């Protein structure tokens, strides 16, 4: 049997170069975080517990397997300052949180990473659909989350002004858990009504960020007013925050956006990311590819692996299913392997992102029943 090679596949040369860049980034990041003059109090304290010396024993990416898995519990509670590397002391710092519906949220200290991540992401956006200088709408969680500032920075980086509509995901999760579905509907409508008001107020908004569920609600809300995302002038949508399935993406493209971008003039790009990692971009989603959503981390600053459910140091074969494992390696933050609450299939390197990706991302089967996915 002959297996045809996908046209999007990266060349060997591209993957080799990417691997070298990753090894280089790994070495430099570990040197920075574990050197007494530049490292953070957290990692310098941890270093004493290791049976190896990160400064001497970690030279390439594969050496990160020597570290224990990063526990997100370490991010709950303070002091937040223990995460600030000495080398960056004195710079203005932000804190971004995840979770927090009940109990102490996980906190990540950030200085410039979110700006760098979204600037890198900006270069992946097609200008045809995300015109430089156009205004944006950010319809999603703000508050303690990274998104508001990140999207706003992305928009400003591209020369526009960002309008923001807030949605509090912690309240959404509470509404779902309490079974207050009428309140949930009303809250969703409250957000969508504000979005429609902004979109119809002549602000020349052409691009937006929103979550899949809010995008669906916005499209339905516009349809109830006999208009559409296409008619209202949106041409570029960057979406993320919750799971994308190929079926939902197809529904979105065919029925909410008016067809594929080349026909409807509306381009939607799914993304995958969180506060720990940057932003993973997707391979272009096409009918021919069965609406497969394959994500690629912003290497070498972050890496996504798909690992065996039992042995988290073992990467599964291409096309095989495993748990999503993230690595972050920037001067601000170091995560030497964190098991996400997701699973998916390992994807081959893409020419634009010549390293492994992950597709079919969905809640990890062991956690799936306890995961609440609301309007956010």
């Amino acid at each position, binding site marked *: 049997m002959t297996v045809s090679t996908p046209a999007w596949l990266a060349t060997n040369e591209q993957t080799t170069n990417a691997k070298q860049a990753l090894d280089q980034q790994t070495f430099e990041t570990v040197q920075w975080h574990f050197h007494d003059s530049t490292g953070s109090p957290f990692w310098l304290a941890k270093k004493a517990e290791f049976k190896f010396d990160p400064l001497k024993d970690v030279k390439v990416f594969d050496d990160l397997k020597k570290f224990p898995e990063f526990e997100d519990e370490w991010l709950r509670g303070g002091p937040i300052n223990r995460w600030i590397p000495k080398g960056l002391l004195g710079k203005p710092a932000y804190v971004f949180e995840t979770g927090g519906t009940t109990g102490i949220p996980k906190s990540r200290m950030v200085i410039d990473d979110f700006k760098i991540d979204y600037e890198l992401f900006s270069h992946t956006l097609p200008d045809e659909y995300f015109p430089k200088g156009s205004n944006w709408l950010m319809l999603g969680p703000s508050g303690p989350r990274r998104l508001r500032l990140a999207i706003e920075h992305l928009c400003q980086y591209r020369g526009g002004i960002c309008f923001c509509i807030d949605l509090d995901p912690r309240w959404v999760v509470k509404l779902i858990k309490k*079974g207050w579905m009428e309140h949930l509907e009303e809250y969703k409508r409250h957000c969508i009504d504000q979005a429609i008001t902004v979109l119809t107020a002549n602000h020349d908004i052409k691009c937006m960020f929103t979550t899949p569920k809010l995008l669906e*609600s916005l*499209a*339905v809300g516009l349809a109830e007013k006999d208009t559409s995302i296409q008619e209202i002038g949106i041409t570029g949508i960057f979406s993320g925050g919750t799971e994308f399935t190929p*079926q*939902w993406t197809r*529904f979105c493209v065919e029925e909410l956006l008016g067809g594929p971008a080349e026909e409807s003039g509306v381009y939607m790009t799914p993304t995958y990311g969180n506060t720990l990692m940057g932003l993973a971009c997707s391979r272009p989603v096409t009918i021919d590819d069965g609406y497969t959503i394959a994500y690629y981390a912003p290497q070498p600053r972050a890496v996504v692996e798909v690992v065996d459910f039992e042995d988290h140091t073992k990467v599964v074969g291409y096309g095989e299913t495993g748990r999503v494992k993230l690595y972050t390696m920037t001067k601000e933050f170091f995560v030497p392997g964190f098991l996400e609450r997701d699973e998916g299939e390992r994807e081959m390197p893409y020419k634009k992102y010549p390293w492994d990706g992950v597709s079919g991302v969905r809640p990890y089967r062991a956690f799936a029943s306890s995961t609440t996915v609301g309007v956010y």
Partner: protein
Amino acid sequence: MLTINPIRWGKQYKSLDFQEVFHFDTGEPIAKIGQVNGGMVEMDMRKASNARKALRSIPTADLISRCKKAAHMFEHETLPLGDGHQSVDDFIHQQSASTGLPEHMCRNNMQKNCFVLSNIDTILDSLTRGLDLEIFSRGYGEEGRNVTVSFQCQTPVLGAVLPNNSPGVHTLWLPAVPLQVGLVLKPGSQEPWTPYRMISAFIEAGIPAEAFCLYPGGHDVGSTILNKCSRSMIFGSAQTVEQYSGNSKVQAHGPGFSKILIGDDVVDQWEDYLDMMVESVLSNSGRSCINCSGIWASRHTKAIGEALAAKIGATEILPPNNPKAALAAFTNPLMAKGTYAMVQQDIAESGVIDMTASYGERLVERERAAYLRPMVVTADSPQRAVAMKEYMFPFVSVVQCSQKDMIKSIGPTLVGTALTADAAWIDDLTNATHIDRLNIGPMPTSRLNWLQPHEGNLIDFLFRSRAYQVVPMRVAQTV
């Protein structure tokens, strides 16, 4: 393997998401069912008025004759289903495979649905108290005493979030079609068979396909149907019923807590009614809301419990294709284990005795499924928690309670069969608003007369009676 696609206003939609259905006993793959999402339902509901428009284009008399034709096809013919066809035997096998019900029970449920559709004219005549159906179609008309009546349809479609494992409930939504109201159905994940086959029969019998949507999918699909259809039904737990109580848009069907109440005037002859009690408890493997979950009497409760246990306690598990199989499987074994754990809690209470304890193990676990064999327990007072329980298998509590306290103690009761000739007590029972269907005399709770409304009259749910006055107008002739 059969692929069943969602249906959106009569058109098959080839989804990229599927749920596979396996035979509970053999593990054999039966079908894969395409899934939709709530947003899709929401977008489709904008066109709901077309469904009623299509049905109103056909006179009700024609719709009724097409319904009767559909009934025949449903019961006897091979019909298109998904990417293939389905014979009657396929249907029975598939339904048994995914719900765990023995095949002969599936056949009985099929006949029940068919009976309702075959007699839809008589049933509608009863539900409307003899009004001309054209009045419902046109919205107003002459009642017959020189009085104008108007019934305004409250929705172009009836939504229904259907249950997983009770193929008998489909009779409730069938009358919508001849009333020219479209159907938006979310089939249960294990019981897509009846709604799909029924819609296929409707379409084959000439009823406009654009009147129907079938949306297999997750919880968001169900909640969107309930939210977007002006009238809908849901089948679920007591919590589901509680959640929608007071919501005039939603008719919620939950556990029945159906009961047999024995009056003091006949309780000493309780043995005469034992077979009727057995049928009420055991039919359809105790799965229906109309199965009896409580037998209440002022005395002889221990003897009644012993006699019932002797009749049903030894019921054996037989293969689903055995015509004598009386027990359905729990296709999700965890559900059987969970149910049994709750029963164990019930019988641990002082004053409660398990009369079936000596008839062998009740929880029987198999490789892919589990069974719960019939249980009879006695309770020495209505205060025992078990007196208000209903489970998805043949389970009955025989509760000791004086006749004078019985009506106020029984709680909500979908079907109440009262064994009595005591006129004063019958009058009290007739006026008890927490009893829905009332049988006076030895009628098994599980035997329904379809000419009577069930859990509310569908006409009252779908239509609103209102004033409609017509004064002749003189209109200038146009040239």
